[in-house]
């Protein structure tokens, strides 16, 4: 589900960016592995992944970042594609069965750019990815 958005000009400091919500499945992780060419068994082989420190398959970090990028695309349009910046840290793994919510808010406008704090959380409220994102406004 992706909700359409208020326009960038309407986003002021403190404004929340309309969230993006995704239901993660092993099939979606497998589809991303095929598209991204990253067949690390940590993502695609639940039997292998079960024996690792993660105890099961986890999603590619770039898949979770794609959800954040979708949220920024919806909020900032071509400005995100033209001059967007993202600095992300992966905090916890996303797993099949998780409901992932990408959300964020505009911290401030500075030098013609919107500086945003964004993150992805799972259904238990755990932060999976935290990031600073910028787009021209």
């Amino acid at each position: 589900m992706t909700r359409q958005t208020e326009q960038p000009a309407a986003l002021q400091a403190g404004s929340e960016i309309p969230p993006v919500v995704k239901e993660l499945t092993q099939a979606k992780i497998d589809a991303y592995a095929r598209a991204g060419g990253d067949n690390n068994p940590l993502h695609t082989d639940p039997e292998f992944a079960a024996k690792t420190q993660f105890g099961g398959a986890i999603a590619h970090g770039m898949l979770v970042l794609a959800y954040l990028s979708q949220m920024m695309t919806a909020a900032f349009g071509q400005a995100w594609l033209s001059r967007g910046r993202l600095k992300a840290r992966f905090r916890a793994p996303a797993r099949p069965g998780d409901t992932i919510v990408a959300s964020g808010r505009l911290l401030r406008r500075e030098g013609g750019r919107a500086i945003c704090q964004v993150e992805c959380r799972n259904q238990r409220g755990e932060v999976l990815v935290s990031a600073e994102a910028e787009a021209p406004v």
Partner: protein
Amino acid sequence: MSVTLEKLPKGHQFPPAEFELSPEWVSQYVAAVEDAAIGRLGDDLVPPMAVAALSIRALLDAASLPPGAIHLGQELAFLRPLSIGERLSARARVASRGERQGWALMSIELDVADGAGRPVMTGRATVTMPLDPERTA
């Protein structure tokens, strides 16, 4: 594929990788990440994270990720919108590398340019991976 990533030294330059944002691949990517936002901006635009994913995929043809590799962080800067059908080239190098307790910690810088050689995206990934993948589990 001759080498896995953890064996590469600091300063290693990956062979330049060229690729096309083909309609088929972009469709596969957009479906995999369920990107409903990009289509609202235009029929021929490519999600910026797709460019990152395809660049990494192209580079992984030269050095594979070992089983158990973990993506810790990602920085990206998008420099212009990209369209389906564009040809791009990606260059990457190992910007830093360290070892601790059987794991390698590496940062890899990525530069992507269009067919005219103009930069379209830059990035930096931080990854960690076991020095002995056989002992990951």
